[in-house]
């Protein structure tokens, strides 16, 4: 935690995006999390991703639940819309907002406690419905805010700071997301922004439910030997299947990789994901293979990271429900009260 305000001065050579903003313009208030918390690095990655995509801050709505992780939206995009909801209820609040105004970019930020314990049902349903959003779980294996109790993602056999062994099985949020129908699923590590930032960018551009599980060490309660969510453990057991280069629809595509190692994945809006394969067998479009790959590696104690699954022709909740184009607040009286002839038609259809 820091009491000094972060000075407004910035590096004179900082690049500007096409809106004329530097990445500093995407920051929020100074973080009050513990010094060294992984969540702050995820915040920095979100800032960087939004800066690089030249997103207008007022086009973003950030929604969160309760927890250290859920506090972080205060620390990025200070000029965006935000809603800090109740514990585990980020998905439903976000779904409602999304239905009312489909034009905003929705960033849902949550923790492993918030999403895998109290909000587990909300999480699964939100994925199932294909709400067009980026769902980031800042996963530290503990309830950080309430002083480090094991969360539902803590691995069986891992040890608490006080030396107590966790005897419950862990929920793998990535597995649940895949099973529930998320159309973009990734896992990353707060200590690897090079991997994480392009994933966040791709998730923002993705239409549909995009889920990213970010392992984010809690330096206060879960960064000791015996933890499986510590900096050291994650670095040692990280098994990246691919590396993503995010290429916007605007920039010309030019990728200089050895043939066969790169796959181009086109998104609905023309953006292209250049996937540099680190594991030759891994296929990001094969849901079943992805699931078994994850099981297989989890059993060996490896943490599989990278873009794990993406659906090319993804759809979202609005497509499923055939809702009107545009936000509800732009509908005029004419559209909302179409008149007695229209009513007559509806009534006739029900007879």
């Amino acid at each position, binding site marked *: 935690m820091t009491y000094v305000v972060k*000075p407004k*001065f*910035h590096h004179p050579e*900082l690049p500007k995006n096409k809106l004329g903003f530097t990445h500093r313009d995407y920051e929020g208030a100074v973080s009050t999390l513990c*010094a060294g918390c992984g969540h702050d690095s995820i915040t920095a990655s979100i800032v960087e991703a939004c800066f690089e995509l030249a997103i207008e801050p007022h086009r973003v709505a950030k929604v969160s639940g309760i927890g250290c992780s859920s506090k972080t939206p205060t620390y990025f995009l200070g000029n965006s819309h935000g809603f800090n909801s109740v514990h585990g209820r980020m998905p439903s609040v976000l779904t409602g907002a999304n239905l009312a105004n489909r034009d905003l970019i929705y960033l849902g930020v949550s923790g492993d406690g918030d999403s895998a314990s109290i909000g587990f049902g909300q999480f699964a349903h939100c994925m199932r419905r294909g709400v067009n959003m980026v769902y980031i779980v800042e996963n530290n294996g503990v309830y950080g805010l309430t002083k480090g109790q094991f969360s539902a993602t803590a691995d069986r056999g891992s040890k608490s700071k006080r030396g107590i062994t966790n005897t419950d099985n862990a929920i793998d949020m990535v597995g649940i997301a895949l099973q529930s129908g998320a159309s973009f699923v990734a896992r990353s590590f*707060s*200590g690897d922004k090079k991997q994480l930032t392009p994933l966040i960018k791709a998730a923002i551009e993705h239409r549909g439910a995009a889920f990213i599980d970010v392992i984010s060490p809690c330096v206060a309660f879960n960064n000791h030997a015996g933890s499986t969510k510590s900096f050291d453990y994650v670095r040692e057991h990280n098994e990246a299947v691919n590396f993503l280069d995010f290429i916007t629809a605007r920039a010309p595509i030019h990728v200089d990789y050895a043939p066969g190692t790169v796959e181009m994945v086109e998104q609905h809006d023309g953006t292209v994901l250049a996937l540099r394969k680190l594991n030759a067998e891994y296929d990001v479009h094969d849901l079943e293979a992805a699931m078994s790959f994850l099981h297989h590696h989890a059993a060996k104690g490896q943490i599989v990271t990278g873009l794990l699954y993406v659906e090319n022709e993804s759809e979202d909740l609005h497509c499923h429900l055939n809702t009107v184009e545009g936000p509800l607040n732009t509908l005029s009286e004419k559209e909302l009260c179409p008149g007695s002839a229209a009513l007559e038609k509806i009534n006739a259809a029900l007879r």
Partner: protein
Amino acid sequence: MKHTDISVPDYFHKVVDCQWACPAHTPVPEYIRLIAAGRYTDAYMINWESNVFPGILGRTCDRPCEPACRRGRVEKDPVAICRLKRVAADFKDDIRDRLPKPAEKKNGKRIALVGGGPASLAVARDLAPMGYECVVFDQDPQAGGMMRTQIPKFRLPESVLDEECQYILDLGIEFVGGKRIDSMKALLSEGFDAIFVGCGAPRGRDLDIPGRKEAVKNIHIGIDWLSSVSFGHIDKIGKRVIVLGGGNTAMDCCRSSRRLGGEDVKVVVRSGFEEMKASPWEKEDAIHEDIPIFNFLVPKEFTHENGKLTGVLFEKVKAEYDPKGRRKLVPTGEPDQHFPCDDVLVAVGQENAFPWIERDCGIEFDKWDMPKVDPKTMASSNPKVFFGGDAAFGPKNIIWAVAHGHEAAISIDRLCRGEDIGVRPAPQVTIASQKMGIHEWSYDNEITLDKRYRVPHREKSAALRNIRAEVELGYDVELALKEAERCLNCDVQTVFTGQLCIECDACVDICPMDCITFTENGEETELRGRLQAPAKNLTQDLYVANNLKTGRVMVKDEDVCLHCGLCAERCPTGAWDMQKYLIDMTLAEQACHLKA
């Protein structure tokens, strides 16, 4: 890149841009903090030790520190380092009991110093308290050199000059005023153990163009005229004055003219405005006193009638650059321009002259007729004779004269002890962590966004009425505090310990200036291009540290670090710490204490 060895004093010294740029290496941020704390006397003493003339320099220094100041790279203007020095001098208490006392016992060594300017006075100040018998000869009756004879009183009041010269003379120095040294040979034969030549660069360049002889009565050499003004021999000038030249002497000439009856005073310069040698603030002050500056005009002829000057004729030129970027002034072909005037002051440069040094007394001169002087030891080719100040390498300024003086004093001391003068004492470094608590530092790490504060000036008409009325009034205590807070505390260093780092990126994320990067090591040029923010300022070092678990390196670009300490506050393991590095150049006197 190689791992940075921070135990080499120069590494962190360079980070303190102002101190590194100061020829005398004054510990600037330390004295600025003391001013902020209201400890003016302590701030003064730090200056006095390093630069000998804080009150004088706080008004007149060329301030090489300010263009170097990091604040100028972070926002627009540097910290007003120079004028804060004056604050220390203005608000200090009586400091006499804190000055060294005249040596109780002389050490039997006698040193002659030719000239009583800042260079000689600095040598004498360093040596006298150690027991050296210092005899200063000057052709003028009083000590001070050009600080007294050239710098106008409206920039430097006599009382300030007298006070600071007196502190030195009171150390038991023999000052022989009104005595011109006419022969080096004769001086060498007087049995001095060493001789320091600090006779300055006393000759003003003339302008040999048609009309010079005919109009001689109204054409004056700038520095001769200024010294006559300063001695009170001249107290008026014509209504219309032209000053030729674009350096600081020209600025002093034109501003003095405005105070001695000059109503229509112009400065005319060969070069363009930007290329003029005068400091920006000197030009600004002249323009403020209604003195227009005309550029790209080369004097061709002094026009005259019946033996009286009528004006100056100029050829119009423009700057052209050859492929190597060298400037040439070429005529534009436009008609010549004539400016009528009553008097001309020629301020087109200053030269050295050593008519009193016989060329066969062991002192070698080069092809420009300058003595061969070692810039490190200030020694000439005669092992007993040292040079410093303007006499050594041509006209510079007071702070260089002082710096030369310190080096010469060290050499003279070593010579008299029979030691190798090539061996120089290392600076003394004191390191102290500034951590007091989790968010508490023993320095003020909050960064103010304030712009540079202007120094209040005397009202113009009052200033122009009296040539002795000081123009600048100095900061008051309140302004001084605000200006002092703009200092970034560059001597409070960011010190990194790789073994403690868990590579959580907290420092990278919090750093407001994007100074810190964890990355794979590489070759410097390539590495500079792929940092968090590009490190394009090649004059600023990269701090590279290894010993990280992932095998990467921590690279910190020192360029625009605010020394705000946020990296250290954010670091969960204390891998970053803010440590104050006080770097004191060892002076002759201290070198002797160290050995004792």
